């Protein structure tokens, strides 16, 4: 259970925040009509440390760089409006000691982040504070130490702490996305597994593109991945340890296995197995290798996803004649259809909060990403487009990432596949930039938990 694999030693020191009431709060259930104006002061770096970091990381001012990571995260959430630092009146070092609140309220900042970065025993030590400008109070102070190479993660962790302090919910910034990188003509697409930070940085390719790979999904409890590979032209579900690169076939099925996902405790893989024109849902226990058949129906049953308590499974079936979403108990009993709107429904995925199921919907030639309650009520469509599918939840259940394809002309020109994110309000839709075309994103849990 050692999740802090990246040597992050979080030393939660210090200056434990004085409990405070009546301070600023951000309501994340509403749209971004009024994002909170926040000032992220560049973190102060004294000159000796600055030089060390310059040599190590080739960054002129690491304090500014970390602040930029925080700023861009806060902005992407749609809940905050980071102010331009040209307007800042106070120097970073002085602000960090004790901000002159009048200066910050003058530029309309309601919250302020200050901090200091030091090079200490070959480690990067960061200390930051969150201030309520209007109340003139410190809301939080925290320090931690890590290897210098992890400096972007430092920015993500700061954002998570600030987000949590201001919204009351856990953040989703110190996370990664695994996805399929795509290149080449549509008729012979080269696909590779790729992994990156949630904000699109630090892209790494995990396969070479020799075989078709699809639908990677994170284990919610660690950094293992399950995916579909056409290795040796046999489409099978694989398990991949992204730390060691070791991979293995899941189970011994005499045919195609696909649509894999982990159970919430990370101990089982749930997937479809296709035989003789019929796809049913199976689980395999990763410890004792016991395989269980969960559905037994002549229709197509696929895209299974567990509820976070592991008691239920939502899945996609065409047993009514067309693709619809169903929910059943995890032993396969009590199957109930929950999608009854017009159109076809696919790719159901249970929210980590347990309250919603996200899905793809096809209606009158348009594709939608939407959410409904687990009994099928309260359907809300968040975004409409020519083609989009495969939502994956942020670990706090507030944001969805999915992929979108554009139309191509008869020669195949104009085709792109890109990752997009949208929050549950439906207002904050963003392109998640990847250096190649991309599809099938899956969001990891928080790395530093």
């Amino acid at each position, binding site marked *: 259970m050692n999740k802090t694999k990246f040597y992050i030693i979080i030393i939660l020191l210090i200056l434990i925040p004085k409990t405070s009431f009546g301070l600023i709060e951000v309501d994340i259930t509403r749209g971004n009509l009024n994002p909170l104006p926040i000032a992220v002061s560049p973190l102060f770096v004294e000159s000796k440390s600055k030089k060390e970091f310059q040599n190590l990381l080739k960054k002129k001012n690491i304090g500014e760089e970390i602040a930029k990571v925080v700023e861009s995260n806060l902005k992407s959430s749609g809940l905050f409006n980071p102010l331009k630092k040209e307007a800042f009146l106070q120097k970073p070092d002085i602000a960090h000691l004790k901000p002159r609140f009048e200066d910050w309220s003058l530029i309309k900042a309601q919250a302020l982040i200050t901090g200091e970065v030091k090079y200490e025993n070959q480690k990067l030590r960061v200390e930051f504070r969150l201030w309520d400008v209007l109340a003139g109070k410190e809301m939080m102070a925290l320090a931690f130490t890590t290897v210098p190479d992890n400096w972007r993660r430092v920015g993500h962790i700061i954002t998570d702490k600030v987000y949590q302090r201001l919204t009351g919910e856990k953040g989703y910034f110190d996370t990664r996305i695994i996805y399929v990188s795509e290149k080449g003509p549509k008729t012979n697409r080269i696909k590779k597994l790729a992994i990156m930070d949630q904000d699109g940085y630090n892209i790494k390719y995990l396969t070479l593109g020799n075989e*078709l790979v699809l639908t990677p999904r994170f284990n919610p409890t660690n950094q293992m991945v399950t995916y579909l590979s056409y290795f040796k032209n046999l489409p099978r579900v694989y398990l991949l340890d992204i730390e060691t690169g070791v991979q293995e076939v899941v189970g011994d099925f005499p*045919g*195609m296995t696909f649509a894999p996902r982990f159970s919430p405790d990370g101990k089982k893989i749930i997937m479809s197995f296709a035989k003789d*024109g019929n796809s049913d849902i199976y689980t395999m226990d990763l410890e004792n290798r016991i395989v269980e058949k969960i559905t037994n129906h002549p229709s197509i049953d*696929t895209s299974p996803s567990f509820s976070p308590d592991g008691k239920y499974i939502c899945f996609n079936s065409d047993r009514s004649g067309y693709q619809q979403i169903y929910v059943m108990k995890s032993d396969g009993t009590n199957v109930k259809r929950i999608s009854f709107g017009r159109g076809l429904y696919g790719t159901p995925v249970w929210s980590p909060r347990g309250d919603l199921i996200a899905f793809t919907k096809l209606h009158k030639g348009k594709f939608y990403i939407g959410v409904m309650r687990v009994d099928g009520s309260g359907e809300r469509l968040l975004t409409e487009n020519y083609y989009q599918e495969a939502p994956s939840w942020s670990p706090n259940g507030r944001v969805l990432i999915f992929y979108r394809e554009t*139309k191509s002309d008869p020669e195949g020109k104009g085709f792109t596949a890109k990752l997009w994110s949208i929050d549950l309000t439906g207002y904050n839709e963003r392109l998640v930039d990847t250096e190649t075309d991309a599809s099938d994103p899956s969001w990891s849990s928080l790395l530093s938990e």
Partner: protein
Amino acid sequence: MKLNKIFKNILLITFATMLLSACATKKVTNQMQGDVYTGKDTVEYLASGVPDRVFFATNESVLTTASRETLRKQAAWLRKNSKINVVLEGHADERGTREYNLALGERRANAAKDYLMTYGISSNRISVISYGKERPVDSGSNPLAWSKNRRSVTVKAN
């Protein structure tokens, strides 16, 4: 047993013909009937007069009359060339979710396999693979391109 199956097939064919004539008012272009591809642009041949692929309607895996005719030709060719094994590659168009399309491609290829088997081809000689929507033959985003991509292709395995 075999006769029984053939009889069942004849029934199915009659049924399909009735269905098709019922749909006769549907738009017929020179390359599509309903939304099933009827052209020859992408078709290759296993032998002279033996087309390698059959086409499907959107979301369907039912064999059309034309598909059955093609598969009967393939069965006859396979009976003559008893050492040849085949792979049936099932495909879907790009207008569906990836995972469902993998299942649909498998279902389509198996519809073709079942038909070959009713015409006496042993299941040992036929393997099946689904590519879902991963390997379109036409990269356009239009109904004609999609109709060419909804297919099961019979490929020599040896």
